[in-house]
């Protein structure tokens, strides 16, 4: 009898939890700052410029443009990576923490997971020198 009642109580709890929408937070600026690939590409750009011009920093316009070009591949895949992380977490909504704060919403921060997905995907991405 007890077990039967436990089952009913748990079912009620699960059903009510299933109605609530799952919100994840992804901070795209923080994702860039945390990315190993991002940091590596920046170092490669500085090293290549050092070799070619004798000066590592600051990057000149040409190198900056080439770096942005390389980084854009990573950036443009962000949306897909967010979707992958959202699906894996059966999330309903993914927003920037700033939006969540503005709207008074709460969610779990999954920025680190998105960075892992992107860094794995672009592990072999190299800086394309101008």
């Amino acid at each position, binding site marked *: 009898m007890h077990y039967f009642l436990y089952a009913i109580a*748990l079912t*009620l709890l699960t059903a009510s*939890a299933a109605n*609530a*929408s799952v919100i*994840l937070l992804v901070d795209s600026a923080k994702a860039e700052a945390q990315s190993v690939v991002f940091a590596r590409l920046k170092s490669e750009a500085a090293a290549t410029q050092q070799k070619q011009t004798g000066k590592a920093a600051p990057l000149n316009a040409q190198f900056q443009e080439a770096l942005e070009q390389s980084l854009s591949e990573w950036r443009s895949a962000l*949306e897909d990576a967010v979707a992958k992380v959202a699906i894996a977490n059966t999330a*309903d909504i993914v927003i920037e923490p700033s939006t969540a704060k503005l709207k008074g919403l709460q969610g779990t921060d999954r920025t680190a997971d998105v960075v892992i997905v992107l860094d794995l995907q672009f592990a072999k991405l190299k800086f394309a020198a101008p």
Partner: protein
Amino acid sequence: MNLIHKIAQAGMSLLLIALFSSALLAQTPNAGKEQALIVDSRDAYERVSALKALFVEVDGKIRAVRGRFESAALPLQRSLEALKNSGQKPEDTRKQKAQLLIKLADLQKAASIEQQKIGRANELAVAEFDALMLKVALELQTERGAKAVLQAQDLLYYRSDCPCNVTEEIYKRINARLPKLVLKL
């Protein structure tokens, strides 16, 4: 042994009470509801019949203005062309040419003013739609006890079949309440 059995039974009863209380609390009006609702209004011009009709009307009016300008401007442009090819000295045709160019500029200005009027009337009509959209969104927010209504373009991702996506309901209510948007020219 009997005492231990009684203690265990009391413990199980307490656990059951706690579980049921949590379940009941979770069933209260504000529990389990979506924190946020989503609206994806990017295809509103296709889905809201009044907005779709307004778009067709505005497009038609702008085309009509352009058509009127072109038919009024064509004879003037032809006269200008004829003057160019008349073989007369430029000094002799300067006055005529200037008059034609002034007439053309006036026509263009009149057409542009008319188009601006249509543009402003369109903005006002769209503002009426926007206001209703906001009103309906707030209604749904209150009905569902949500903290916020988010626009799809402000999200990094959303599950299109999420119960929190109220786009269809919003379109349904707007179509029922706004059969037509009037272009007040």
